[in-house]
């Protein structure tokens, strides 16, 4: 049988213990085609990709119906190994890098360059020696193709998230027999400039004849990069269309299945002249690889929403991480005028700060615990919330936890079967919402959120941003929001601080001109004024 299609997903259905998450999905992809796959959080995108890659979660839960066809042959891969041998590569939604290994060792994982020795001739190929020199060369080459300058022998642990993503891509493009490359939300962890670079690379790969399956919640990027788009809703294909016939709005509506109001909250800003600072950063240095902060000074008003923006790698991500004590920090942090101990995450939490990290894939959820416990755990430990006394022994108040979890699930629209569901069984986007819920449960004075909407679908994005604004208005919570999406910052913030080369370049009002923002992000703002 010959066919023009490289990959045919033919009428695939999947059930997770009675819960049908895919219903008769059919998708066809030609060589060299970039195919977009979009859908709400929990629509079944990752599940479909896991089927394609023969992941064990699928086969341990009863397999699937339907067929995976490659070059006209039914293949139905049962292990990742089989998939790889078929030429399928995948960048998973969660990280698949071994932290203790170097970049090169990760790129060449299980595909190491080896050379013969005496033992391998007797005992077989498993005893071949690794040829580190050649491996390094291959690794370097793959990194160079991506325009990555990092040392190929750096350990992966501690690299910034964006870099890790490129290392994963490097690993995939280093595979010689690669025919089909699957990206599950590759840009969710990338800053805007990195994402641009990434999209160029995708295009280049497609031109080489590699078919690309691309999952993303950034619809503009889907429009920009893909040739065809498949829209999933609740496990069903609702539409299969050529990108030239689509626009962001149309796709969004197809995804959600209802009309969307795209107007984002217009903030009514009162121009308070406040000298009341809740948080002051003085001469802050944060040693976060790839996002270093160098001598940053910044003051945060009580009760404001402060946006922190800037280009990737300039240090904006490092600020919140430094305040929370997650990376080595020096300088001075004053909360309500009182110095906050540095490098001690527990102290930061104790003093009323809460943090939603940008590191979505190492989200730090207890994956084998329920949604409700995940939401409650930090508050339980730090704030002694949800405790009741029984004969003088502190007990978890399960009822209160349940109540609260149910509220949060409703408020954030967490798509789940109930508060008792294990977070492992949630889709990526919904796991993030659980993280946000957990931070808010701490009742912080200041909540620091980094990239709060990455990996969250268009509908849910609005919910999250609305909630932050609501908390700010109704409870007076100070919000510090770090984001690479300027539009998002401008829609919710009272002030926006731009970080450049690890320093504060300046603070702008959200309605300042695009030119000002552009200049500031490029570090040209101050210079122009002086000259």
């Amino acid at each position, binding site marked *: 049988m010959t066919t023009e299609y490289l990959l045919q997903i033919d009428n695939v259905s999947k059930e997770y213990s009675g819960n049908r998450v895919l219903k008769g999905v059919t998708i066809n992809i030609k060589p060299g085609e970039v195919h977009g796959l979009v859908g709400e959080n929990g629509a079944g995108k990752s599940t479909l990709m896991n089927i394609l890659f023969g992941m064990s979660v699928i086969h341990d839960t009863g397999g699937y119906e339907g067929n995976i066809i490659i070059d006209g042959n039914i293949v139905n891969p049962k292990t990742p190994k089989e998939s790889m041998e078929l030429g399928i590569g995948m960048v998973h939604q969660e990280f698949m890098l071994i932290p203790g290994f170097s970049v090169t*060792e990760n790129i060449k994982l*299980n595909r190491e360059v080896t050379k013969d020795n005496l033992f391998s001739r007797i005992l077989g190929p*498993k*005893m071949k*020696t690794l040829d580190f020199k050649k491996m390094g060369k291959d690794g370097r080459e793959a990194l160079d193709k991506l325009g990555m300058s990092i040392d190929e022998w750096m350990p992966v642990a501690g690299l910034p998230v964006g870099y890790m993503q490129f290392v994963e891509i490097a690993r995939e493009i280093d595979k010689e027999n690669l025919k089909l490359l699957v990206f599950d939300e590759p840009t969710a962890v990338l800053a805007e400039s990195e994402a641009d670079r990434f999209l160029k690379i995708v295009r280049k790969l497609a031109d080489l004849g590699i078919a690309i399956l691309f999952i993303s919640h950034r619809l503009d990027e889907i429009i920009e990069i893909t040739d065809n788009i498949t829209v999933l809703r609740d496990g069903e294909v609702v539409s299969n269309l050529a990108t030239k016939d689509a626009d962001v709005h149309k796709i969004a509506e197809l995804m959600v299945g209802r009309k969307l109001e795209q107007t984002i909250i217009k903030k009514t800003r009162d121009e308070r002249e406040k000298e009341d600072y809740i948080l002051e950063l003085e001469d802050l*240095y944060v040693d976060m690889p790839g996002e270093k902060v160098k*001598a940053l000074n910044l003051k945060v008003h009580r009760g404001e929403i402060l946006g922190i923006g800037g280009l990737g790698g300039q240090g904006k991500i490092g600020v919140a991480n430094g305040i929370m004590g997650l990376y080595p920090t020096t300088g001075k942090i004053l909360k309500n005028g009182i110095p906050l101990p540095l490098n001690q995450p527990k102290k930061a939490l104790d003093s009323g700060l809460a943090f939603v990290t940008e590191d979505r894939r190492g989200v730090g959820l207890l994956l084998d615990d329920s949604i409700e416990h995940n939401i409650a755990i930090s508050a339980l430990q730090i704030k002694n919330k949800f405790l009741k006394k029984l004969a003088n022994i502190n007990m978890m108040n399960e009822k209160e936890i349940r109540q609260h979890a149910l509220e949060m699930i409703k408020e954030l629209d967490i798509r789940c079967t109930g508060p008792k569901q294990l977070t492992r069984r949630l889709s990526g986007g919904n796991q993030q919402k659980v993280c946000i819920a957990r931070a808010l449960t701490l009742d912080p004075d200041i909540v620091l959120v980094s990239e709060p909407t990455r990996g969250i679908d268009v509908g849910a994005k609005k919910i999250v941003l609305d909630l932050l604004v609501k908390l700010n208005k109704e409870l007076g919570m100070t919000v510090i929001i770090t984001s690479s999406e300027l539009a998002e910052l401008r829609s919710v913030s009272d002030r926006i601080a731009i970080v450049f080369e690890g320093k504060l370049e300046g603070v702008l009002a959200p309605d300042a001109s695009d030119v000002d923002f552009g200049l500031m992000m490029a570090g040209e703002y101050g210079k122009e004024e002086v000259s």
Partner: protein
Amino acid sequence: MDSNAVLQKIKDRNQSFGEWAFKLIVPIVFIGLCGIGYHFSELPFIFVLNEVIIRLARNSFLVISLIIPVIAGMGLNFGIVLGAMAGQIALIFIANYSLEGLGGLLIAVLVSTPVAIVFGYLVGLVLNKAKGKEMITSMILGFFANGLYQLVFLLFAGTIIPFKKEGLLLSTGVGLRNSVDLAGVRYALDDIYKYRPDAFPMLTIPVVTLLVVALLCVTLTFFTKTKLGQEMRAVGQNMHIAQVAGINVDRTRIMAVIISTVLAAWGQIIFLQNIGTLNTYGSHEQVGLFAVASLLIGGASVSKATYKQALLGTFLFHMLFIISPMAGQNIMNDSQIGEFFRVFVAYGVIGLALLLHAWQSKGKKQSLKSS
């Protein structure tokens, strides 16, 4: 100041000094203990050195056999007890056929290997069913295997299994005697070449045995640089990712256990050729415990171990063995104290290591949670 310099300074200061000190603290404490013990034992230096070298030669192989499962993320393999049994079975075999000398020893090695491979395979199968609980499982497996071993040699020997040589069986004709004389292979390896420095007449160094240990270390280093070694490291760090990369995780883990078991079998043969008699029902019992304690004293942890740590640990542990009876005698007027002390040390250090391991992994979870 140059901002990069400031960052560098932060880095240097924070460069997990704690972790570093931690790794060294156990060996340092034991070096201290050895120093104090040596002082109070009032034993001549050359005597102690000689004893330590002999024990280093006969025990290191067993201790090093623990390393590969640690690399593969399976923790401390108390299942080497089964390897030791395989070695003993082979020794009983050669004793039965009166095979002697170096040739006999080599035959024992050859016989023990397939037996150890089978044992290792079975242990590996069980451990794959008990991922995350390998250590306790392997310990229980050791006890279980001990039961079977006793059954075989107490009831089957002489009835189902025929024995040729006189004097091996109990007088009833059923069951193996409590001790088997290994005079035929005694010192078969050690005596190939013994170096006796003229300056120190008390010192004899079993050069060939030490060379065998050195060869094992070299092979181990080589092994970690092979494809299989790399796979084991990957599996040890994260089974899920390794599997997604196409590595057959279960098979790799079984391989690790097999290698460890085979090495333990050989190690037990080396050990017993030096001792000279096989305590049929007892020689293997403490093997896991003492080897694990030695490794840990050298500064290894449940997730990281090198042959250097194994050698250092063996040295320190046995140094304590040698000096503690005399030290006990001189301090407390009771040489038994020393015996108590070394058992206490063996169990204590294992308990401590497991506790630290539990803490560390909990600490990791905690820091994730708070972020």
